[in-house]
């Protein structure tokens, strides 16, 4: 039953619906010597709508319970009522800081179900955009994490550089986020004119900027004081909790799906998996900085390959590949005059096929797959089930933020209340991905 907001007012209960874990099991009462407070769901440093119920002994957190669901939008259910291609526009909205990874994992899953593979040029474009997206995602982690610790200049610099890459995304896909640019079978359209030069400019400027962040922060006494030795999560505990991504790598485990189970041709790129040993918030910051450099390396190689590899960016199969080869006319509207002439004047069957493709989309053979990509926050897995129809039967997103957030009690219980802020920032959860 949904609450109407008009129920009688109950006596104030600080932990509310999650109170059971905080009451004394013997008496059923709250302990008198500690204090229970709510942090969030609208606290500025909880990275969105995350609610933490904290039991405090003075300044020390003795118990913490994360409460999620405030951003649940039913993305998984929605995909079951849309066509396979429309599914891309839903999943991309889950982890909105890393939309290309959601699209890529979904497209890989659908392609595996259909038994097709995207053309080589499309694969390169996917890798290029994903690595640029990884940089923007790590920049957001750095910028918002910096802001929460009072490092306002880091926030300004991080978002400034992110804006450069967002401009590239806008040039290529038309949107800054929620692109729906990767489609089952390839990508929507080839890079527009001038995109290559734009990417080149950004790749030239970013290494110096990343050096700047390191100059600002690496030996900054305040930054070190707030981050070193805080929110330690050792490798064994990470594996128990299923934590992946930079948090796991900062604890010394070189687990990276791009190396372990390569997809989209990652085995042909030259890059290193960054690890550190300490497993604290500072190590996670350093891992993210170094991963941005590795992403630049991959993006350089991908950009170089795009100069040599030409050809289609969508699979050449009229039963799968849609829409046709759009070109943007002088009026700024995408169209394909040759294809329009074909369906409107030459062939009735082509028009029927076009109509079926637009309204129903493709049929995907029955089966189930679990496709994974290494997202900026760890293993993003899409479990996709088809019953043979033109809509997904089930789409489940194993989002790394959701799983990593389970580690919150581990990294803040026993620490001071002020340490919660770098701890959450270093786990870098995105609530859109957590709640979906």
């Amino acid at each position, binding site marked *: 039953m949904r609450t109407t907001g008009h129920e009688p007012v109950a006596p104030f209960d600080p932990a509310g619906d999650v109170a059971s874990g905080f009451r004394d099991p013997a008496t059923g009462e709250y302990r008198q010597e500690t204090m229970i407070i709510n942090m969030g769901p609208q606290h500025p440093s909880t990275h969105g709508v995350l609610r933490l119920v904290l039991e405090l002994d003075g300044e020390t957190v003795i118990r913490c319970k994360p409460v999620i669901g405030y951003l649940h939008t039913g993305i998984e259910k929605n995909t079951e009522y849309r066509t396979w291609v429309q599914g891309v526009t839903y999943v991309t909205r889950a982890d909105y800081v890393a939309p290309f990874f959601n699209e890529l994992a979904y497209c890989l899953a659908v392609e595996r*179900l259909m038994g097709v593979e995207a053309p080589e040029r499309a694969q390169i474009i996917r890798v290029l955009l994903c690595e640029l997206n990884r940089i923007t995602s790590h920049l957001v982690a750095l910028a918002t994490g910096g802001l929460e610790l009072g490092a306002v200049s880091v926030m300004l610099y991080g978002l400034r550089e992110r804006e450069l890459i967002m401009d590239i995304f806008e040039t290529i896909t038309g949107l800054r986020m929620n692109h729906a640019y990767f489609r089952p079978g390839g990508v929507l359209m080839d890079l527009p004119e001038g995109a290559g030069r734009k990417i080149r400019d950004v790749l030239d400027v970013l290494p110096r900027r990343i050096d700047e962040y390191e100059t600002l922060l690496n030996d900054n006494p305040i930054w070190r004081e707030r981050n070193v030795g805080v929110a330690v999560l050792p490798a064994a505990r990470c594996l128990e909790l299923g934590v992946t991504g930079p948090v796991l790598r900062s604890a010394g485990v070189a687990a990276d799906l791009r190396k372990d189970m390569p997809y989209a041709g990652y085995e042909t790129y030259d890059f290193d998996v960054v690890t550190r040993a300490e497993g604290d918030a500072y190590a996670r910051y350093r891992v993210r900085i170094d991963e941005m450099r590795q992403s630049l390396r991959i993006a350089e190689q991908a950009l170089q390959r795009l100069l040599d590899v030409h050809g289609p960016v969508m699979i050449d199969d009229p039963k799968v590949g849609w829409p046709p080869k759009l070109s943007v006319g002088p009026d700024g509207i995408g169209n394909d005059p040759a294809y329009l002439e074909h369906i409107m004047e030459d062939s009735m069957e082509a028009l029927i096929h076009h109509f079926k493709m637009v309204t129903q989309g493709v049929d995907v053979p029955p089966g189930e797959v679990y496709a994974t990509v290494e997202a900026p926050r760890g293993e993003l897995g899409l479990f996709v089930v088809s019953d043979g129809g033109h809509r997904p039967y089930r789409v489940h997103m194993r989002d790394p933020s959701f799983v990593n957030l389970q580690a919150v009690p581990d990294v803040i219980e026993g620490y001071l209340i002020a340490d919660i802020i770098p701890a959450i920032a270093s786990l870098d959860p995105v609530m859109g991905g957590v709640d979906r």
Partner: protein
Amino acid sequence: MSVEEVAAAVAERYPDVVVARGEATVVIARDDLLEALAWLRDEPRLRMDALSSVTATHWPERDPAFWVDYELRSMPSPQRLRVKVGLAADDPSIPSVTGMFPTANWHERETYDFYGITFEGHPELTRIELPADWVGYPLRKDEPLGGVPTWYRDAKMPPIDQRGQA
């Protein structure tokens, strides 16, 4: 170790193994689940020691009506294995694996929240994404969507679950 070799090793003990699209799936009876996961974890050839994901699917017209899916991963070798357990419509309950894989805690809560599948022995099986007082299990296929018609200028669109197959 290829996926066929993984499947062959699993099949020695649990014969209901399928390899499709490069992924191995083993179907296990509900009562064998904990024992099977422990064996898959400890068997030196497999070492399926990490749990990536738990979720379910609902097939209201079939028996079993629910399939619970466990996506296992081996950290030492890059291999995956899907474990599936079928549950009858009138008894959707299954042992919790949180004792073996603490990461399953939130996954199982989510599956309970969306499908109403009870995980026996879970430390705190409460709703996670939906409000605590929500009635119903929204990802079940027979759960009404509760949509309302959409007006657009002079046309009225029925809710999406009543539009029929376009």
